C-alpha cells in the first residue's frame, strides 16, 4: 500500500512491493541486490522498518553481489537515537552499502567521547554522528538570563564541542557529522522573540549558527535537519508526544528522510555523489515542444507564470553548474531546432557551451545516456536523468537502473525543489576545481574539436602544449587531494581511499612520499589531476601505494610523464627498484595493463584481481612524450 505521507517523494511509488518482499523473505538465500532494489522506492517509515527487519533476518544468507562497502556509523546523542537505525540501514541499502551502527548509551555521549577505552573504540567507526537536542543545549537558560550569560553558554558549548570533535578526530580518524538542533521550543515573546536573550528558541537559532561556523573550521560536517524541517514543517519532524513519551527529537515518521540526509553527507565524503545532470528539453527546460511551436512559441521567460517557472528552474541549474555539477542534454528532438532554441531565445539562461554533451536526436534515451557517460568518462551511477515524461523515465530506469531517475512533479515551479530534496549532488566542500569544472569541460570540447582536426594523435598532443607541474603534497590543497583520492574510480591502480586525517599522516610519515600533479595546456588549467603515493618498503625498493588520475585528461599520454617523474623521484630517494600493483575494483579495467604498458614486469599474480609489477630503475629510460615537466615551488 503506497502511503501519501511517504517523505521520499522523488522515488517511484512502490507497486507489488509487499509481495516482492514476502517472496524474498521466503527464499533460502536471497540476492543482496534484490533487497537494494526494494529500497529504491518511496517508502514510509513503516515499510522502512519492515524491510530492515527482513534484511536483518536474511543478511547472513544473502547471495550474489555483495554491498559496495562497509560503513560503520556511530551515533552518539543526548536523547533517543535507536529508532533512527532501521531507516539509516535502509538508506545505506538504497546506495548498495551495508551499514553497521553503534548506538551510544542514552545520554552518555560525553563519557564516550572522552573515554579512550570503550565499546566505541572496539567498533572502529568510519563516521560518527553527534546529535544534541535543543532541550539539552538550552538547559540552564531562563527568561531572566542576560545577554552575557547567553553568549557565555554558547561559547561554553562551542568550546566543549570543539574539544570533543578534536578528541574524536585524533582517536578515530573518521568523518564527524554534527547534527544541528531542531528549534523545538515554543516562543514566549512571539514575532520579536530575538529581543529576549534568555529565550530558548532564540538560543537554538543562535547556537545553530555558532556550531556551523565552528564545525567548518574544525573540518566537521553538519547535518542541517533544522533547514530541512523549515521546508517540510517542524511538525513533520518533531512530535512533542514522542518527545515526552520516548525522548525522540526526530519523529519516527521523519526517519526515512533524516536517514537520507545522513547518508548523503557520508557518501559525499566517499566521493559517491552524482556528478552529471542529464536533462530533457521540451517541458523540462521550457514549456511546450520547440519542434512544433518554434523557438518563439515555447514558454520561457518573464510575463507568464509558466515561462517564469522554467526560468526559475534554469537559474537553479545554472547555479548547480557553477558550483561544479556537469550538465548534459538528452532530448528527442531535431538537433538543429533544439540548438537554435539555446542560440536564439532571448530569455534562455543556459547556453549551449554549458552542456558538456548535447544529444538531441531520435535514438533511444538509454543509448544516448550511455554515450554521454562514455564521452565524459564518468560512471552511470554518477548520473541523474531528469525528464517530464513518465515513459522515458520508466525506460531509463529499466535499462539503466544505475542512473538516478527521479519522479517529476507536474508543476514546473517545483522542479528545483525536487532536485534539492532528492539531494543527488550533495557536496561537503567546494574546491577551486569544482568552480572551474564547467570551464574545464568547455575546454575539453575545444580540445576534442582540435582532435578531429589533427591528423594523428602525436601531432594533436604536441599541439596541446601540455605542461605537467608537480610537487610534494601541499597541505594547502588538502581538500582537493582528498576529493581526488576518494572520487577517482577508473584510472586508479589500487583504489585505496584516504580521508583527510590519513593524508595528513602520510605527509608526516618519513617512509612515505606523495606527489601531486597539475596539468596546463593551451586551453587552460586542468587543475590538480593526478596523485602518486610512494612508500619505501625496503632500503632499495619504493612501492607505488596509490596512483590515480582524473579521467578528464585521459588519452593524452600524461601517465607516461607521471611515471618519468615518479621514477626520477624514486631514484633520488636511493631506490633501484620501483614496484606497483594493480588491484581490480570492478571500475578500473581501464588501467589493468597500465604497468606493462609503462615497461614494468610481472612479479606475482595471485589471480586477475591483484597483480604485482616491478620496474628496474637502474636501466630505466624516460618515455618520450610531448609533455613539458616542471617542479612547482612549494
Amino acid at each position, binding site marked *: 500500500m503506497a502511503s501519501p505521507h511517504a517523505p521520499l517523494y522523488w522515488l517511484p511509488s512502490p507497486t507489488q512491493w509487499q509481495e516482492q518482499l514476502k517472496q524474498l523473505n521466503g527464499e533460502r538465500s536471497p540476492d543482496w541486490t534484490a533487497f537494494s532494489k526494494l529500497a529504491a522506492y518511496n517508502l*514510509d*517509515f513503516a515499510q522502512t522498518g519492515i524491510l530492515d527487519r527482513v534484511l536483518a533476518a536474511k543478511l547472513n544468507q544473502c547471495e550474489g553481489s555483495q554491498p559496495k562497502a562497509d560503513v560503520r556509523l556511530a551515533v552518539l546523542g543526548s536523547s533517543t537515537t535507536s529508532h533512527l537505525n532501521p531507516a539509516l540501514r535502509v538508506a545505506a541499502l538504497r546506495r548498495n552499502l551495508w551499514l553497521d551502527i553503534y548506538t551510544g548509551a542514552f545520554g552518555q555521549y560525553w563519557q564516550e567521547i572522552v573515554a579512550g577505552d570503550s565499546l566505541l573504540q572496539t567498533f572502529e567507526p568510519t563516521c560518527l554522528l553527534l546529535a544534541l537536542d535543543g532541550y539539552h543545549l538550552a538547559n540552564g537558560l531562563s527568561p531572566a538570563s542576560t545577554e552575557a550569560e547567553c553568549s557565555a553558554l554558547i561559547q561554553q558549548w562551542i568550546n566543549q564541542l570543539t574539544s570533543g570533535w578534536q578528541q574524536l578526530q585524533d582517536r578515530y580518524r573518521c568523518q564527524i557529522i554534527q547534527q544541528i538542533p531542531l528549534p523545538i521550543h515554543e516562543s514566549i515573546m512571539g514575532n520579536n522573540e530575538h529581543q529576549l536573550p534568555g529565550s530558548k528558541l532564540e538560543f537554538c537559532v543562535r547556537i545553530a549558527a555558532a556550531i556551523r561556523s565552528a564545525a567548518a573550521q574544525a573540518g566537521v560536517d553538519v547535518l542541517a535537519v533544522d533547514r530541512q524541517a523549515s521546508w517540510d514543517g517542524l511538525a513533520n519532524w518533531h512530535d512533542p508526544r514522542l518527545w515526552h513519551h520516548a525522548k525522540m527529537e526526530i519523529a519516527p515518521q521523519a526517519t526515512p528522510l533524516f536517514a537520507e540526509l545522513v547518508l548523503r553527507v557520508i557518501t559525499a565524503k566517499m566521493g559517491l555523489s552524482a556528478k552529471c545532470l542529464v536533462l530533457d528539453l521540451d517541458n523540462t527546460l521550457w514549456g511546450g515542444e520547440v519542434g512544433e511551436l518554434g523557438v518563439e512559441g515555447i514558454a520561457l521567460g518573464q510575463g507568464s507564470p509558466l515561462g517564469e517557472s522554467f526560468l526559475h528552474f534554469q537559474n537553479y541549474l545554472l547555479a548547480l553548474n557553477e558550483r561544479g555539477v556537469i550538465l548534459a542534454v538528452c532530448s528527442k528532438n531535431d538537433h538543429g531546432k533544439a540548438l537554435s532554441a539555446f542560440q536564439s531565445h532571448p530569455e534562455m539562461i543556459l547556453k549551449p557551451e554549458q552542456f558538456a554533451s548535447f544529444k538531441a536526436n531520435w535514438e533511444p534515451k538509454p543509448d544516448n545516456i550511455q554515450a554521454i557517460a562514455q564521452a565524459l568518462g564518468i560512471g552511470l551511477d554518477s548520473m541523474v536523468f531528469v525528464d517530464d515524461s513518465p515513459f522515458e523515465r520508466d525506460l531509463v530506469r529499466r535499462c539503466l537502473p544505475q542512473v538516478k531517475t527521479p519522479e517529476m512533479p507536474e508543476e514546473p515551479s517545483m522542479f528545483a525543489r525536487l532536485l534539492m530534496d532528492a539531494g543527488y549532488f550533495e557536496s561537503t566542500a567546494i574546491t577551486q576545481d569544482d568552480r572551474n569544472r564547467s570551464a574545464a569541460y568547455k575546454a575539453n570540447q575545444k580540445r576534442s574539436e582540435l582532435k578531429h582536426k589533427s591528423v594523428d594523435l602525436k601531432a594533436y598532443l604536441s599541439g596541446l602544449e601540455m605542461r605537467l607541474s608537480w610537487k610534494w603534497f601541499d597541505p594547502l590543497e588538502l581538500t582537493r587531494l582528498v576529493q581526488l583520492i576518494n572520487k577517482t574510480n577508473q584510472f586508479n591502480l589500487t583504489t585505496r581511499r584516504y580521508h583527510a586525517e590519513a593524508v595528513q599522516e602520510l605527509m608526516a610519515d618519513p617512509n612515505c612520499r606523495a606527489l601531486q600533479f597539475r596539468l596546463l595546456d593551451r586551453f587552460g588549467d586542468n587543475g590538480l589531476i593526478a596523485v602518486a603515493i610512494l612508500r619505501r618498503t625496503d632500503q632499495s625498493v619504493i612501492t607505488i601505494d596509490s596512483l590515480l588520475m582524473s579521467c578528464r585528461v585521459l588519452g593524452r599520454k600524461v601517465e607516461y610523464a607521471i611515471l618519468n617523474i615518479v621514477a626520477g623521484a624514486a631514484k633520488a630517494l636511493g631506490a633501484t627498484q620501483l614496484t606497483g600493483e594493480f588491484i581490480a575494483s570492478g571500475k578500473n579495467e581501464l588501467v589493468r595493463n597500465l604497468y606493462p604498458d609503462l615497461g614494468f614486469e610481472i612479479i606475482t599474480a595471485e589471480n586477475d584481481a591483484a597483480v604485482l609489477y616491478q620496474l628496474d630503475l637502474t636501466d630505466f629510460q624516460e618515455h618520450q612524450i610531448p609533455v613539458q615537466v616542471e617542479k612547482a615551488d612549494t
Partner: protein
Amino acid sequence: MKQTEIYDRLNALFNEVFLREDIKLSPATTAADIEGWDSFRHIELMLVIETRFNIQFHSRELDEMKNIGDLIRVIERHLPAA
C-alpha cells in the same frame, strides 16, 4: 467508516507490519497474542495506524489501549463522523 471496515484495514495493516498473512484480529487480541508486538513495536504500530488512517491519538491513548477492541473504538472516535 464502519467498524467492520476499520477492522479489515487494521487486519491488513497488522499482516503488513509483521510480514504475515495469517493474523486474524479479534476484539480480544492483545500484544501478547502476536509475536514481535513489544513495547518498542507498539509505538511504531500506533504511528503507522495514525499515518494510514490520517488521525492522531492522544498521548494517554497510546498506552491505554489494552486490546484490538479498544483500538477500534479509539480509531472510530478520531475518524470524522460518516
